């Protein structure tokens, strides 16, 4: 609680990412003006649009609408990426042949961080057992994949991050691992488990911290509807040690090309994709940006904005 209570934020959606080939499809859907108008009317009616704190009920309403809109897009190319402990992975529920869910969220890709406990080199394949402290998981790499430096770098006793798809084959669950990366900064291990807790909390309790850190609105001008005015300063700059970083992020978000992305976000588009874009720009810190958006006529109002835990890369 001490870890989370320092930050007032809530998630706009699960971490979803959209593969490149379906991006066009996503844009086509979101360009459906009828839908957008309806959505806008519904949200306008339910939320206050000025820079005042939203009541928890209004926030969770907005929250639910954005989440429902995003999850109603049942394209198989829209996948979830969930950080999980192996204990959680063991307790997922299944409804059908290949549909797994945990805490009410569909699972597609999982992220695991653990120690390589066993590594066996057989002629055609390499068998690994990874132990994250809550359980062990086995996976193997076939011989032709070993040429890739990613797998070659893995040694016994090393901490690695795995990404894979959860599969169900004849009643037996396994993870089809497609990415293995050694962990170099061990804060990543703590971060992964904290993130597991955080995502679990979000999915089960719909936790939504009332109050807000920073509020600002873009001022629409005739020339450029997304032009921001000079009043766009963050308050409390003298008390906040992270003010400089936050101002840097705000400056980045205020660029016109990113405001377009923000509009897509407000329509329920993927958050992780945008977050990744930001991560590529600012590799100094791993920053989790949580935004709460609503829109009023042609401008976007950012209601809640907070930067999550800072982990050095």
């Amino acid at each position: 609680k001490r870890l989370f209570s320092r930050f007032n934020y809530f998630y706009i959606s699960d971490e979803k990412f959209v593969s490149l080939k379906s991006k066009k499809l996503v844009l086509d859907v979101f360009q459906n003006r009828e839908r957008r108008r309806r959505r806008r009317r519904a949200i306008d009616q339910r939320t206050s649009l000025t820079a005042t704190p939203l009541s928890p009920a209004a926030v969770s309403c907005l929250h639910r609408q954005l989440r429902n809109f995003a999850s109603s897009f049942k394209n198989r190319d829209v996948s979830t990426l969930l950080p999980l402990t192996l204990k959680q992975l063991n307790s997922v529920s299944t409804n059908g042949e290949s549909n797994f869910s945990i805490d009410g969220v569909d699972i597609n890709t999982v992220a695991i961080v653990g120690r390589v406990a066993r590594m066996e080199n057989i002629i055609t394949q390499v068998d690994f057992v990874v132990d994250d402290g809550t359980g062990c998981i086995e996976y193997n790499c076939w011989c032709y994949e070993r040429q890739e430096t990613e797998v070659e770098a893995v040694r016994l006793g090393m901490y690695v991050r795995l990404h894979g798809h959860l599969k169900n084959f004849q009643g037996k669950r396994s993870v089809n691992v497609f990415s293995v990366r050694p962990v170099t900064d061990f804060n990543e291990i703590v971060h992964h488990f904290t993130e597991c807790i955080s995502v679990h909390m979000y999915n089960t309790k719909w936790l939504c911290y009332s109050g807000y850190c920073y509020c600002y609105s873009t001022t629409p001008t005739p020339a450029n509807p997304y032009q921001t005015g000079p009043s766009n300063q963050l308050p409390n700059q003298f008390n906040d040690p992270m003010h400089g970083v936050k101002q840097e992020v705000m400056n980045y978000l205020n660029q016109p090309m990113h405001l377009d992305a923000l509009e897509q976000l407000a329509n329920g588009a993927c958050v992780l994709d945008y977050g990744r874009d930001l991560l590529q720009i600012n590799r100094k810190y791993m920053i989790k940006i949580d935004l709460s958006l609503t829109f009023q006529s042609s401008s976007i109002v950012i209601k809640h904005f907070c930067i999550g835990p800072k982990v050095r890369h």
Partner: protein
Amino acid sequence: MDTSSPSAFVNGALLGRLAGRKVRTVVQVIGSEIGSVVGKTTDDVQIFVRGSSPAPLTTYVEVIGIAESDNSIRAETWTNFGNTFDPQNFNELCKLANGEFKHLFM
């Protein structure tokens, strides 16, 4: 997928509660002798870690092993965590992983 022998995240205060069970913790190395290492846990409790440690040790070392008492661990696995590890984050994780969110870990 095997979850039969989990190791609990502990700090100094939690070590006593889990005597005899498999635990994992990160200590800041204060001193080392042959056969044991003296370390300070993330909540500033001094503990002894018995076992043969790999040399050299970095400032922070993760130890996985069996808790013998409230201030000693018999280590099975040692991992150097470097010099830039944040002990406060780990301390908070220990509290959460043994408290409200125990069902995600054990």
